């Protein structure tokens, strides 16, 4: 089999270069995004792409977002916003934790919810 030799080579030097470049690229992009962001002031709640509610990050509050037969409990506390409870299947929004910087988002895809911190 002529392909045998190429099949046996699992990793070549280009793979390693690619691996390192992508890790560096991703890490740099992450750090740039993280450190160039200012703290936000307002929390915007988008339902299916439309702005439905707006809150100040300075005022502690709790808001229940309702989508069809599901809901997400959004909590604003000590200048942070997070999702404390949700009945969506994956709980990604709850696991995303607290956010406070301008441009950061928490997303609940099943409920078409985007929580975005804004200036």
């Amino acid at each position, binding site marked *: 089999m002529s392909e045998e030799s190429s*099949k046996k080579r699992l*990793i070549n030097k280009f793979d390693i270069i690619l*691996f390192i470049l*992508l890790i560096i690229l991703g890490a740099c992009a*992450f750090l740039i995004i993280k450190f160039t962001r200012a703290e936000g002031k307002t929390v915007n709640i988008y339902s299916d792409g439309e702005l439905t509610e707006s809150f100040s990050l300075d005022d502690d509050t709790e808001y229940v977002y309702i989508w069809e037969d599901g809901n997400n409990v959004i909590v604003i506390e000590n200048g942070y916003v997070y999702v404390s409870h949700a009945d969506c299947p994956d709980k990604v929004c709850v696991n995303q934790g607290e956010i406070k910087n301008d441009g950061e988002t928490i997303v609940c895809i099943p409920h078409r919810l985007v929580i975005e911190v804004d200036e």
Partner: protein
Amino acid sequence: MRNNRKIALMGAFIALAMVLSYFESFIPVFIAVPGVKPGLANIVTIIALKELGLKDAFVISIARIILSGILFGNITVILYSLAGAILSILAMSFLSKIKIFSVTGISIIGGVMHNLGQVIMASLLLDSGSIMYYMAVLTVTGTVSGALVGILAGIIITRIDFSGKN
């Protein structure tokens, strides 16, 4: 490859990919970023791409996504997975042809492109461009998981003869 053998192999590949994506759903989201998954079903996609070619790899991947989506997910899951899979397979197929990278490099690009497709779909569905920021973290996780998947797929390809000649 004989037609009957190919049909049987594709059926087995679809079943295997479904089992892998079902198995993966039990792995908890360990990083607080949506879309971070090992992508085990990609092992099957890469083997199919190498052994059967682009068209059959496409059929296997799309059949797996639709069947798994109906059984264990929902329409949004199907849309995301399709966007990721289509971009990923096209990129991997292109890289297989230009023969610079080995299977590991091809899989790394596949992993990152899968994430990119999903993030683009999320931006479209949620009408929010700020989701693109997740791509920074997903580039790192997609690269790592893509490398692992590629090494696994490569080992399987070298150990198993799918042509059935022996």
